[in-house]
Structures are given as structure tokens and as C-alpha cells.
């Protein structure tokens, strides 16, 4: 009896062990990195329809008096995405649209479906692009390293044209719906797969010219989608964001 129970326990331990090993295999690429490959999608976040699911009230409180004065001169109509200028991360992570990650040794690529872009992220820990080759850009210059199972991406060299949230995001009754950035913006992102079908994303944003201290986004949960790639999507300003975004992800 004891022997049977013992065998059952050994069997159960073996079974659990094997299952964990199988999960472990799926969690790593063939060259031994955590495997973030897949098409992922989260909920739409922000403060557009009451509530604040992206920590935007905190962000609003961090703007410097100078930035506030400039933001007072602007309105939601100035949101660059209305002209199809693609939003950088972390804003791209709050849209609720699909993104795709593909890895190869030394690089991770992040494709976004809404406002289609690709980010080429070196994962070898190499330094940022050398200054003589560096142009300020909408999506910034990324470089990354693995901290355990988390991909930590450091992003600099933004052009200061992007906004951190949408013109519709108004966390308080006094909000103008204007979310400026500057070329001094520095973003640190953390990407981590917590199980086979779930990816977590979190970012910290510093911007010495517009923010008095660092702003942290909440953890964004992205779920694996059962398609092998995102769709082609061309943004046309004449469609307007509602029409354009409504066409996606269907």
C-alpha cells in the first residue's frame, strides 16, 4: 500500500516536473532567450470615458509650469495621431490594438498594427546608436538587455513631437487633453511573459523638460492572439481616428 502511494507520489512529481520542463521549453527561444514571440493584444486604456486606467491623473500632476503654459495654448485637436503620426510606446501600449513581437539572435522586433510601425530593438546589450548616426525620431532609439526573464528596453532620442496620451484622455474636469513630450524624453520599458498566453508591459517615463519627476505606467496585460501576424493598415487622416481604428482588429 505504502509502495503504491509512494509510486503515485513519484509519478505525480515526475508528471509535474515534465510539464514544467515542457512549459520551460516553450518559454525559451532556440538560442536560450525568454521567448516573447507572438501577436498580443490588451484592453484599451486611458481616461477617455470616465475612470483612469493608465495613471494619467498622476502624469497630469507631474507637468512643469512651463509645459502647462504651453499646453494651455493647445487643444485635443493638436493630437499628432490625428495626422497619422504614430504614437510611441508607452502610448502605443494603451491603444488596445494588436502588436507582434518577433525575435532573432541579437534583436527583437515590435510591430504595431494601428499606426503601423516597427521598432528594431537590439537585445545584445549594445549601446545606443552612435551619435553621428542618430536622428531624433517619433519612436526613439532603443537598446535592450535581459534581466532574468524581463526584457528591459531603454529608449532615447525622441523628436519631442509625440504625446503621452490622447486628446480624449481627460482624467479630471480641468484636463485639457494635451500630453506634450520633449526631445529629452527617456523611456525604460519592461516586457515580460508571465505564462504561455500572457505578456506584461510596464514603462517609466522621464522628461526633464516637461515633467518634474518620473512617471510610471500601470502594468499592461497583453493576451496572445491566435493569428500568425498582424494585418496591413494604412492610416489616412481623412478617415478620422474613429473610422481608422474601428477598421482594425476585426
Amino acid at each position, binding site marked *: 500500500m505504502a509502495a503504491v502511494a509512494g509510486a503515485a507520489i513519484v509519478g505525480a512529481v515526475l508528471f509535474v516536473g515534465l510539464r514544467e520542463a515542457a512549459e520551460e521549453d516553450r518559454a525559451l527561444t*532556440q538560442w536560450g532567450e525568454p521567448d516573447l514571440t507572438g501577436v498580443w493584444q490588451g484592453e484599451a486604456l486611458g481616461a477617455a470615458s470616465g475612470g483612469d486606467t493608465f495613471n494619467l491623473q498622476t502624469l497630469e500632476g507631474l507637468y512643469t509650469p512651463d509645459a502647462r503654459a504651453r499646453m494651455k495654448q493647445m487643444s485635443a485637436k493638436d493630437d499628432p495621431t490625428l495626422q497619422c503620426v504614430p504614437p510611441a510606446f508607452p502610448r502605443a501600449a494603451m491603444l488596445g490594438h494588436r502588436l507582434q513581437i518577433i525575435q532573432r539572435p541579437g534583436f527583437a522586433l515590435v510591430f504595431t498594427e494601428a499606426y503601423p510601425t516597427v521598432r528594431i530593438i537590439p537585445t545584445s546589450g549594445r549601446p545606443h546608436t552612435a551619435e553621428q548616426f542618430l536622428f531624433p525620431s517619433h519612436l526613439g532609439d532603443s537598446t535592450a538587455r535581459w534581466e532574468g526573464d524581463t526584457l528591459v528596453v531603454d529608449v532615447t532620442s525622441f523628436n519631442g513631437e509625440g504625446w503621452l496620451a490622447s486628446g480624449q484622455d481627460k482624467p479630471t474636469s480641468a484636463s485639457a487633453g494635451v500630453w506634450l513630450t520633449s526631445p529629452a524624453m527617456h523611456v525604460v520599458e519592461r516586457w515580460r511573459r508571465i505564462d504561455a498566453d500572457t505578456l506584461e508591459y510596464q514603462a517609466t517615463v522621464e522628461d526633464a523638460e516637461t515633467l518634474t519627476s518620473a512617471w510610471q505606467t500601470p502594468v499592461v496585460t497583453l493576451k496572445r492572439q491566435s493569428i500568425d501576424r498582424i494585418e496591413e493598415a494604412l492610416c489616412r487622416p481623412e478617415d478620422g481616428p474613429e473610422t481608422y481604428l474601428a477598421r482594425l482588429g476585426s
Partner: protein
Amino acid sequence: VSARKLAVMAVLALGASAALAQVSEITPPASGSREERVGSLLPPGVESAAEATDRVTNYTPDPAKYPVPRTSWDGKPDFSGVYWPGVNITPAPVPLESLYKPEAREYREGGGGARGLIDWRSIDSPAYHCWPPSPANGSMALSLQLVSAPGFLLMLNEGGGTFRIIPIVGEGDRRPDQSRRPSFMGSSVGHWEGDTLVVEVTNFNGRPWLGGARPPAQPPQTSSSALRIVERWSRPDGQTFEYQAVVEDPEMLTARWTGPVHRRGMLPYDMIQEALCVPDPELYARHREFAAAAAAARGRGGVRGRGGAR
């Protein structure tokens, strides 16, 4: 960064330096093509587009000296790299224009799937509206990055920032995914035939032009949603890749068209730069006014012209 960018940077730097009186002023040559004129402004040691084109055209691939890199996961050729410029090393057996159906003429005159959006007799073109480049040349821009990854070949364009995600499947599984929305760059599916990646592309949206217009005689080389392209991607050596497309469009063309053998040289960079194309409605509005005025002028000129001929 591309050599083209470097060249532009050099030209810009020269302009700034001239303002600081650190170098003597330059008088750009008045004759020659635009490329030749820009090339003559480059500092010594910076290759011009014309020089790079000649170099890649006259290059003989040498796989012994520059072995084709292979991936660690399937041992197939690794296409990863940044490529510029592109040249046609073997011309198409027949010009694409010779295969257009006469009855497609009217549709083409109207701009095809770009009807109402593009005035092809003026400066207008698909690129002007930030549409991806012609699928008859792989939707490739002037400079691009290829990335091989497990199960995928990725093509990332520098100009315009468009991209193709090409899944690579086994021989028995190579039907393009028709559940996707029809699109400018189509739905691709690739499989290996030896060391050549053969990619079938279908599910186009009928809007791309296969080739540009040459006003006034040649209207846009439009396509239909029946467009089907079979591409062959290969790496003759570690410095180049080659591409050839076979294009079918039974609604536009009388026969299958085999495109030129296209070659790209590799640059010593590991990534392209962001160079997005952002549509500008105000610019379009101004351009429509300009085009309407030009069309009105053409109309008057045409009447006078016919009168003169009589």
C-alpha cells in the same frame, strides 16, 4: 543609417559649413542628372548613388570569399542585413507595358484603384499618398532591412516605414491566408526550394500600381484584386541578395510577366532608421488646386493644338 543618408548628411553638413565659411562655397554643376549633380558635391571617399549603383551592377558574387550566412535554427540562408542600392542585373524578357490588355486602357487612364485620389498626369503618385512601393518589386523601398527569424522573413522599408511579415511554412502548407483583409502588399506565404525562398503573394486590394505612369503617353500600370505574384529570394553570397518576381493579373495582363533579376548590395549597418511617410491633407488640397488649374490649361492648350494641326 544608409549610405544614401550619409550622402545627404554630407551635403547638409557642407551647406552648414559654407555658412560658417569653413569651406569655400560650392556651385552645383548645372548639367547632368540630379544624381550626378548631388554626387559631385560629396566629399572624397563618400560613395554617390550612381557610383554605388555601378559597383553593385558590376559586382560578381563570390561565395568563397563571402560565404552566405546561415541561420542557427534551420541552416537556411540568413537574409538579415541592410541593403542599398538596388539594381536590375538582368532585364525583364519583355516590358510589362507590352502585356497590358488594350481594354484595360480606360481603367488605367482613370488611375485604376487610385481613381479620384491620384492625378497621374501631374506630380501625383502612390508614393505621394504614402502607399507602399510596387508589389511587382517586392514592395521594396530604395533602402531596406531584411530580417530572418524562425518561421519568418521580414522586410522593413526605410523610406515610408512600411513592412512585410512573410511567414515561412513547410512544402505541404503553402496556401496564403485568405482570411486576411485584402491589402496593398497582399498576403504572403513562403517556402524553401533548396536555398531559394519562394514566396507566393495574393489577396491584394486592387489599388497598387505595378509600375509608374509616364505622362502623357503611358497611363499608370494598375493592378486588380486578381493580382498574384510569385517571388524568388536568394543570396548569391554574403554581400548581396537577389530577387525576381513573376506577376499574373488576368484582368490587366494578357500573359504572365517575368520581372527583372534585381540585386541589392549590403551595407555595414545593423539597422535602418525611422523615415515615416505621414500624409498631409493640406498639401493634397493645395495640390488638387494646382492639378485642376493645370488640367484647365491643358484643355485650352489641347484645343489650340488641334486647331494648329488642322
